[in-house]
């Protein structure tokens, strides 16, 4: 019953697409700017940060979508994954 969850698939694929295309546009723009002006590297850096943040964003989107569907078991699972990812960020610093 769980597999064909059209709404969740839609929310997650949109989140992934949004992250991928935003990151890609910023990185390409930054690489081109870099050839002309020194602050181009800052634009590529923002693009790579968007790329790094996208997986975390995708977990948050899943968590919210499962809450919306009142599927609390998987909302909790998503929250657990998010907690580990945030822990990795904190421990890395």
């Amino acid at each position, binding site marked *: 019953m769980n597999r064909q969850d059209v709404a969740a698939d839609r929310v997650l694929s949109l989140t992934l697409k949004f992250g991928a295309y935003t990151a890609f546009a910023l990185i390409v723009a930054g*690489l081109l700017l870099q050839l002309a002006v020194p602050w181009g590297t800052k634009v590529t850096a923002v693009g790579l940060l968007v*790329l790094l943040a996208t*997986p975390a964003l*995708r977990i948050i989107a*899943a968590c919210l979508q499962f809450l919306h569907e009142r599927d609390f078991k998987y909302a909790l699972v998503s929250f657990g994954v998010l907690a580990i990812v945030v822990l990795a960020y904190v421990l890395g610093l």
Partner: protein
Amino acid sequence: MTLAAMLLLVAIGFFAGGFGALAGVGGGIIVTPLLAIYFGLPMHQAIGVTLLCVIATSTATSSMYVERHVTDVRLGMTLELATTVGALIAALVAHHINRRTLAILFAGFLLYSAISMIKKAWDSRSAKKEEGIPDYTPQNYPAGLAASLIAGGFSGLLGIGGGPVKVPVMLLFMKVPLRVAAATSNFMIGVTAATSAYVYWGHGDVRLDIAAPLVAGVFTGSLLGAKISPKIRSFYILMLLVCITGWLAAEMIYKLFTGGFQ
């Protein structure tokens, strides 16, 4: 960075992402050794940069598979509980492993990948393309979680996705159809690699100047590869990848014997 170096990195990313998506293997395995051997990056930095490429491939291609309802999102999220823990622990450990040991581990992994791709190429000759997905219920979660923990560990230690560990276990022990297992593994890789990447980032091992042109190439290559992969026989691409990984493994071993990777 010179324009030539930038374009070279874009090209490497394009081919790694494209071949990876076409052959159904992670392109990351060729990026790390190329950076370590030919660009002189320390192993930790080469792995840190590769992790960004892995996130790029997973993000770009898994949006397509999720849209087509091939990915089992709930199964993926559940197994991510284990891949992220494995990735976190291994990434913290990797920081304390010296470059040479890491290079030895990676060379061993390259040889293993080359051999498993020969088997995959052989099987692909008789495989049927694009069939429907049968009904299933994932079974044996403990086996799946254990495999995911190990796959996550490989991600944190060597900067790879860990698909070769997860997919067979999902297929054989959890009774998930192959296409679903492959798409779900691909979906999980982004979050797993991100977990490792945050740790590498914190340790200063993610070189943004090298990563940016690579990632731009990987995005284009993997999207193009995923679009045309149903129309292409993966046999020849896999054999080409076997040659490349075999060559890179030989180069790494030669460099190890001549005192490299210090």
